[in-house]
């Protein structure tokens, strides 16, 4: 009887350890504790060129993460990229004339959306569109422009 009791206790310890490990991985290692997925409101923005922006990329203002990119679609009428941003509910004071830029983290890092607040007293709500956007900087285009301007200088 004591042996069975001991094996019961050990199995209990084993299963508890396993669940603690899963919990540790979920809360400490993965983004479950930081990412409030599902809750929030959507904003849209149209960009001429999104570069290599991906779904789930961070959306930041002043370097603080407010949300993430929910979806990226293509608008066939204006030939622009239609980006849906999901902003967490607690950040509900984003002015209507906010400026959305696509930045790159580091020289070759991943791309993210940086918001520059405007001065309007009205704030954006669910489904609203950010009017002012700036495209991603594409390295090849910049090099091309640089070479072109150099060539023009040489011609004069």
């Amino acid at each position: 009887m004591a042996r069975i009791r001991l094996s019961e206790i050990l199995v209990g310890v084993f299963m508890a350890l396993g669940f603690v490990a899963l919990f540790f991985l979920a809360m400490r290692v993965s983004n479950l504790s930081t990412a409030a997925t599902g809750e929030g409101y959507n904003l849209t923005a149209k960009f001429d060129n999104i570069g290599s922006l991906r779904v789930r990329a961070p959306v930041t203002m002043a370097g603080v993460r407010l949300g993430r990119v929910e979806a990226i679609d293509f608008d066939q009428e204006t030939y622009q990229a239609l980006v849906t941003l999901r902003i967490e509910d607690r950040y509900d004071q984003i002015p209507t004339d906010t400026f959305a830029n696509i930045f790159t983290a580091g020289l070759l890092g991943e791309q993210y959306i940086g918001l520059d607040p405007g001065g309007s007293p009205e704030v954006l709500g669910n489904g609203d569109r950010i009017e002012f956007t700036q495209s991603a900087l594409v390295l090849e285009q910049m090099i091309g422009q640089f070479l072109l301007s150099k060539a023009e200088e040489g011609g004069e």
Partner: protein
Amino acid sequence: MLDSLARLGRVGLAMLASLGRAHLLLISILRGLPSMLVRPRLLLVQIYGVGVLSLLIIVVSGLFVGMVLGLQGYYVLSQFGAAESLGVMVAASLVRELGPVVTALLFAGRAGSALTAEIGLMKATEQLSGLEMMAVDPVKRVLTPRFFAGLISMPLLAALFSAIGVIGGWFVGVGLLGIDDGAFWGQMQNKIDFDEDLVNGVIKSLAFGLVVTWIALYEGYDATPTSAGVSRATTRTVVQSALAILGLDFILTALMFGG
């Protein structure tokens, strides 16, 4: 010419027949689930044998795999000035790949071989026939609890392996090599996604647990009931489990992260 063709055909047919027997066995194992739920003690004893007794090797290997990942990752990442990403590298490789795969390989060697040998010997010493004589279904009584014990233990062992490995990587990275503690955990939390990385890792370990336990039980149940037969079956369990784990891992990785 015809003889060799016939030999090839015989080998192919034998393989197909064996595959069919394995699936039939799996079905009758699953059928035993209700009668096992009536007697949870049978399952408990098997979880003790399969899971608890595997704890030591899993914890120790997890710790050392994590520490080696920490050392090697630091060597490469510091050359790019990205040593702070060590946490991401250690956690991603453990949770996605090494945790489930290495745990499953160890599990096959530690628990799978023991299951095959036990059931093979039960068959060789006619204990299984004895059960049948007493109108007890040996599949329901002997195989079903072992199968579910493997299925339950494997994800828990893999989670333990990954968690201990991350702590091992933390110990080497933060404790010995002087990476910033906040950067180690912060970057890890930023990059490791719960759905994509963790859930997929658990799915992988469940799949490996099923395959390893299934192979082990089938090989034991199908073994030639002699000492040589049981020894061959045990070898086959380890070899086939390892091959199945690695092949299945490639397929699962391609499905989960390939797209």
